[in-house]
Every structure is written in structure tokens, then in C-alpha cells.
């Protein structure tokens, strides 16, 4: 009896090293042997695409890279698909890009730089790099953009960038896109939407979906793309397959593993408790 009990007790108290190793192995399997799980497009992703389509002919889009490098497993796919959509399918749209997290330069180099080689820099797109100050920066860009952005990332004065001629602040943008892992989207809603009614669409980690749902139902944002699942759906909708779909496959297997662990933990707990009684 004690051998059985000690087995159940041991199953209910597996050391963290084993759980950690198991997690890495389970996640590695679908990379080595892809499963190809079907992808179902949810309405939220369709609304996000609709927000992109709604940008008028020759419109201006503010593209804010607010994602830390660690989060790009989720946001990287949606950033790449969205910038490809604008550069390849909507060359008429002007993209003004900056970032509120200092990793934005690394994110730009990894997910955006090569796509922009096909664009007319200075006319179709401009890149301003990292702007410190979070709330102060977001408010300043909405009120008086040229008051802070005097040169682009490469040191070219703003006056020489044709795209910036009639852009002075939030009212001049038809859409603001924030791909965020650190809560900057809340500041954009507070300063850009509440004050200038700028249309905002945010891409973020799936952990922030509950807050985004709340903002969406309150009408503060016109769309959101949540986590790897949203990114994989957006890649499919925009027809630009990318990293998100392979990660999406992995995510499903890992999710089942997480659900399994939750059940396993409870089952072994109850069996141990029953035997103790």
C-alpha cells in the first residue's frame, strides 16, 4: 500500500525540472513532425482586416512597433503580414513608423526591413526608430508630431521626406496600428482616440485579449489581433503565410499539454487526498 501511495504522492509532486524538460520536448515535437492543424478564422481577425481595408485611397497610417523582442513569437507574424499588405497591395497608403519600446530597432531589422526594400522610402514610408518617454511621447506625437520628430532614423531631416509634408499629428492619420507587448496601446487609446477620435487597431499578446475585448466593446478600438492565433488567422486572411502559422501548429499541441497538466494535477491531488482520508 505504501509503495502505491508513494507512487500517487510522487505523481502529485513531480519536480519542476521534469515538468520544465517535458514542456520543452512537447513543444519541440511539432517543429520536427508538423501536425498541420486546421485554422478557423474568428470574427475579431476579420474585423482587424476590415480596419486595414478601410484605410482610404492615399491615406496615412501610423505604424507603432511597441513589441519587445521576446514577444515577437506572437506579434512578429502580424507585423510582417500587415506591412506586406500595405507595401504590396496598398502602395497608395503612406506608412509612418516608430516604436515605443527600445527593442523596436531589432524588431524592425528582423520583421520589416527587407519588405521596405520594395517601397519608395521617403514617399511611401518613413522610419523614425525609438522614441523614449511612453505617455509623454504618445501625447506629443498626437498634438505636435514635428515638434519631436525632426530627423528620421537615418538622420534625414523631416523637411526632406515628402511623406511628412501634411502630417502634423493624430488628426492627419486615418489609422493607428500598435503592435504591443507592454501596455502602450492603453496610452494610445487615452491620447489618440479619446482626444482626436483616431481609429486604432492593436496587435498584442494573447494574455491581453480580455482587456482588448473590453476596449473593443466600448468602441475605443476598431479591431485587435490577439496572439499567435490571431496572427496565423491574419496571415491566412491577407494571404501572406509567415512564422505565425508554424508557431500556431506548435501552440495547439502545447495547449493540449497544458490542459492535460491541469487535469493530471487535479486527478493525482484528489487520489492522494482520498487515500490520506
Amino acid at each position, binding site marked *: 500500500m505504501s509503495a502505491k501511495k508513494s507512487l500517487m504522492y510522487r505523481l502529485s509532486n513531480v519536480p*519542476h*525540472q521534469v515538468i*520544465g*524538460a517535458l*514542456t*520543452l520536448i512537447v*513543444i*519541440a515535437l511539432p*517543429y*520536427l513532425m508538423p501536425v498541420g492543424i486546421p485554422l478557423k478564422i474568428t470574427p475579431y481577425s476579420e474585423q482587424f482586416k476590415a480596419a486595414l481595408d478601410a484605410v482610404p485611397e492615399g491615406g496615412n497610417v501610423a505604424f507603432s512597433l511597441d513589441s519587445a523582442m*521576446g*514577444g*515577437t*513569437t*506572437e506579434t512578429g507574424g502580424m507585423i510582417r503580414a500587415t506591412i506586406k499588405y500595405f507595401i504590396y497591395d496598398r502602395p497608395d497608403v503612406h506608412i509612418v513608423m516608430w516604436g515605443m519600446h*527600445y527593442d523596436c*530597432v531589432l524588431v524592425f531589422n528582423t520583421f520589416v526591413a527587407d519588405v521596405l526594400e520594395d517601397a519608395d522610402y521617403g514617399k511611401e514610408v518613413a522610419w523614425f*526608430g*525609438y*522614441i*523614449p518617454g511612453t*505617455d*509623454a511621447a504618445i*501625447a506629443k506625437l498626437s498634438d505636435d508630431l514635428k515638434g*519631436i*520628430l*525632426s*530627423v528620421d*532614423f537615418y*538622420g534625414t*531631416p523631416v523637411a526632406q521626406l515628402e511623406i511628412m509634408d501634411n502630417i502634423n499629428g493624430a488628426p492627419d492619420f486615418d489609422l493607428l496600428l500598435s503592435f504591443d507587448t507592454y501596455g502602450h496601446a*492603453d*496610452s494610445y*487609446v*487615452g*491620447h489618440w*482616440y*479619446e*482626444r482626436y477620435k483616431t481609429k486604432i487597431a492593436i496587435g498584442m*499578446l*494573447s*494574455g*491581453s*485579449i*480580455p482587456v482588448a475585448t*473590453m476596449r473593443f*466593446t*466600448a*468602441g*475605443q478600438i476598431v479591431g485587435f489581433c490577439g*496572439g*499567435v*492565433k490571431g496572427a496565423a488567422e491574419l496571415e491566412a486572411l491577407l494571404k501572406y503565410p509567415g512564422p505565425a502559422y508554424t*508557431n500556431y501548429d*506548435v*501552440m495547439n499541441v*502545447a*495547449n493540449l499539454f*497544458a490542459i492535460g497538466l491541469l487535469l493530471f494535477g487535479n486527478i493525482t491531488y484528489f487520489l492522494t487526498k482520498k487515500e490520506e482520508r
Partner: protein
Amino acid sequence: MVLELGPLVGATLILMLFSWFLYKQTVLYDIAEGVLIGTGAGYSFIMGIKAVRDNAVLPLLRGETVWIIPIILGFVIYLQLSDETIHFSRIPIAIIIGVGTGLSVRRVLLAEIIAQTRASMIDFSALDTVGLINSILILVGTITTIAYFTLSREQTGAFGTVTRIGRLYLMATFGAMFGNAIFGNIAVVAGRVEEILRGFGLM
């Protein structure tokens, strides 16, 4: 199977850091942590210098003399590093805090309190039965959870029941957010597993 130096160095460093939970703390983990802290400190300093150069020094050199004030105040911040001169540094810090507080009060007032209060005011008569039940449940949740956060009354008696319901709503909120956070964070782990596999040429 050609191994590239860069991804191989990356994959090795990831495993050295992971050794803390896969095994226990070792010298390998200490090295990885030291590299993270060192490169991180250098990187944020560089990004700060670039932001100041692009947004203040270059405009100043082009004749916009007003930028000399924040640049001087910026150097004054560094006076906090010695006890004799720390009080000087409080002036630029007061500017950062004053502007930051003012803007967050503006944002919070507009986007949080008014918008959320407004969003709670639903026209109940226009809802179908399911919508009505859900809206009542949301309303009960909002009010009982606000009650839970009152600090000046003991949570006993009838008021205790209200706050108890509020606490159960909070548990539902924490469970929902935890469930969603799991999904997002697995993606971060997946990205590292992919980097390990690519680094060692297994993918």
C-alpha cells in the same frame, strides 16, 4: 549539416540560461545572466543617446536653441549619482514626474473611468433575454467587485456577502486572464525551442 556561428552561440546561451530550471544554478547560468545584464545595460544606454541626439542635439545644431534647456537638465539628472549633488537632480525629475502624472491622469480620466462607466450603461430594454441575463451578470460583477475594493468597511454581514460575490468574480477574471496568458507565453517558449533546434542544425 552546416552550423552557423551566430545561431549556435544563441542556442548555447539559451540552454545555459535554461539550466537553472532544468537542473539547478550553475556557473553556466551565472555567465548567461551576466551577458544578459551587460548587453542589456549597454543597449538601453545606446538607445537613450540616439534618442537625445536625434530629437534634441541635431535640432539644436540646426538653430532651434530652445533644446539647450532640456539637454542641460538632462545632464543634471546624473548629479543624483553623488550624495552631495542629489538635490539638484530633483528638478528635472520633478518635470518628468509632473508631466508623467498629468498625462496619466488625463488618460485615466478619459479612457478608463468615463469610458468604462459609460460602457456599463446599457439600454436594458433593447436586449433579448440572453443579452439581458448577461448584462445583469456583468453589472452585478462590476458593482460587487467595486464593493470588494472599499477599504473603510469590514467585509462582514450583508456587505460581506456582496464583497464575497465580488471576490468570486475576481477569481473568474484571474482564471480567464491566466488561461489566456498561458497561450501567449507558450509562444515565447516555442520561439526559443525553435532557436535551439535551428542553432544545433536539427531543423
